[in-house]
């Protein structure tokens, strides 16, 4: 069974040889190929070389496009801050208020800034791994997208105190979102992961998500022609999990390390795949043995009914995480499937 079959079977609730193992490893590929992060995120060949190195040296059950949203803020006119040891950040948004954002032209995924590079990455990954390793396209959720145009403060100001304006901005950005998501799928992505911060309890209350953002999420998902995973984006998600089943094309949900896995399963029912729950910040500080134990605990809790993928929670795994810890995640999944590690 290859990684693609393993993941597809898991999503479909079919038997697998072992539970799949994911980790958010974009920048980590640059670490393995000794490529600086600006080059990694600006050169499709360099990024793909990182994913190839990850497959050779670690061999997790995915390859992925970059978890880098500055390429979207940049495409709208924002400025990017580059770092040696972490993925880039938005230094300055394109405009300073939500009203001005309504007149920003929408980027063309095939032409604007670094967007075509990511499409090229996806095409190259598809050429190398189609139906062998799942190709995951990563993008922000449609409800947090406006923050990439105006900054989180202005977006919160609109969302909380001028809901008509917030809705206009969601409507304005929707065609870009749909075109970008479908372009990633057309380029070869097997599944999209949308990191929706506005669903997280660390950002918004349940009422706010249910009333203001869920309708938009529903509308957008119906316009995207492929399977989707909703990602917690760093914060807790359990407070809205019961609202998510039934979203068009939703196949899985990535929860945070602070969400209770058992409760999450109860909330989403038996048919959606749960992903994640390994604490991203802990991984660089613990040994491979501890990583193995932590992974085995998650597998025991969430994998017995199927529909579970072991994964770190949050964004890129810290670059200081030893590769042995990533291999320990894989070892735990293999041992779990044959019943080893019973006394851990």
């Amino acid at each position, binding site marked *: 069974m290859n990684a693609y079959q393993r993941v597809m079977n898991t999503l479909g609730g079919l038997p697998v040889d072992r539970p799949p193992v994911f980790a958010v490893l974009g920048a980590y590929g640059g670490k393995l190929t000794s490529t600086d992060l600006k080059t990694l995120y600006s050169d499709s060949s360099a990024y793909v070389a990182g994913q190839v190195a990850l497959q050779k040296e670690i061999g997790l059950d995915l390859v992925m496009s970059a978890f880098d949203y500055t390429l979207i803020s940049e495409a709208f006119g924002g400025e990017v*801050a580059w*770092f040696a*040891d*972490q993925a880039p*950040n*938005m*230094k300055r948004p394109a405009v300073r208020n939500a009203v001005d954002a309504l007149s920003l032209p929408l980027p063309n995924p095939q032409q604007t800034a670094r967007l075509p590079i990511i499409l090229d990455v996806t095409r190259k990954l598809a050429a190398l791994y189609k139906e062998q390793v799942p190709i995951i396209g990563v993008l922000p959720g449609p409800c947090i997208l406006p923050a990439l145009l105006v900054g*989180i*403060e202005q977006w*919160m*100001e609109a*969302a*909380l*105190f001028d809901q008509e304006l917030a809705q206009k901005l969601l409507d304005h950005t929707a065609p870009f979102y749909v075109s970008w998501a479908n372009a990633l799928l057309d380029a070869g992505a097997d599944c999209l992961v949308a990191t929706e911060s506005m669903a997280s*309890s*660390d*950002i*918004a*209350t349940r009422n*706010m998500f249910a009333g203001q953002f869920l309708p938009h999420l529903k509308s957008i998902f119906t316009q995207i022609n492929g399977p989707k995973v909703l990602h917690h984006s*760093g914060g*807790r998600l359990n407070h809205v999990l019961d609202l998510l089943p039934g979203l068009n094309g939703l196949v899985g949900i990535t929860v945070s390390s*602070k969400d209770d896995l058992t409760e999450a399963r109860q909330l989403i029912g038996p048919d959606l795949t749960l992903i994640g729950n390994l604490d991203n*910040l802990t991984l660089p500080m613990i040994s491979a043995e501890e990583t193995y134990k932590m992974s085995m605990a998650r597998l025991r809790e969430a994998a017995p009914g199927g529909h579970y993928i072991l994964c770190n929670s949050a964004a890129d795994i*810290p670059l200081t995480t030893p590769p042995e810890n990533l291999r320990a995640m894989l070892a735990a999944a293999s041992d779990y499937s044959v019943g080893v590690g019973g006394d851990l």
Partner: protein
Amino acid sequence: MSYQNWSEKLLKIMMNADRVGAVALIDEVLTSGIGSRQIITDILDPAIVQLGRMWEQESMSLSQNFVASKIAEDILLRCIPDKSEHTHSKGAVVIGNIEDDFHSLGRKAVGLFLTAAGWDVHDLGNDVPAEELLEKAIEVNACVIGASAMMQTTALNIRKVRHLIDERGLTDRIKLAVGGAVFNWRPDLVAEVGGDGTAHNAVSADELFTRLESEVRREVKP
């Protein structure tokens, strides 16, 4: 109505995220003859402290934090014409997002709550080198530097502030408050970066800075 009653009324409005209602209440307070200074120190500040305590054990969303900070900002702006009346300052503090960190929302909220509580806040903005934070603190005679970071990678840059404070022999004179999402997720990081304390949310910042300031007063004998 007593200050306490007004403050309790304001607290209820803040909990309901009623920004318009808060401004209306402050207008009512002003009309009743209470001055700006009392509004800030005896009505707004106790409401903020109480809010912080109520949310201490809970997960406070960014949106709740944001609404509370905006209400505080509205009240401060409403009272600005009489700000000269607000003569008693708790002291100078310096805040900023540490070098390489651009997540300003939490820091701005902290600045607002500290200002509301009577601190003389020097906000240096985003991406501030450790040297700059310390130089400003020395220049304005600040007793606390508040360094903010959202991610672990940038939080580690705060270690340099700790190093510089200690290297310059200012350990007893300048305390280091640290904050940001990553410290709520990994409380042990406070000690790892050399922080003297943290607050779980912006509303609680005044309590933290007050504690740190009192430590400075205890440690530095005139």
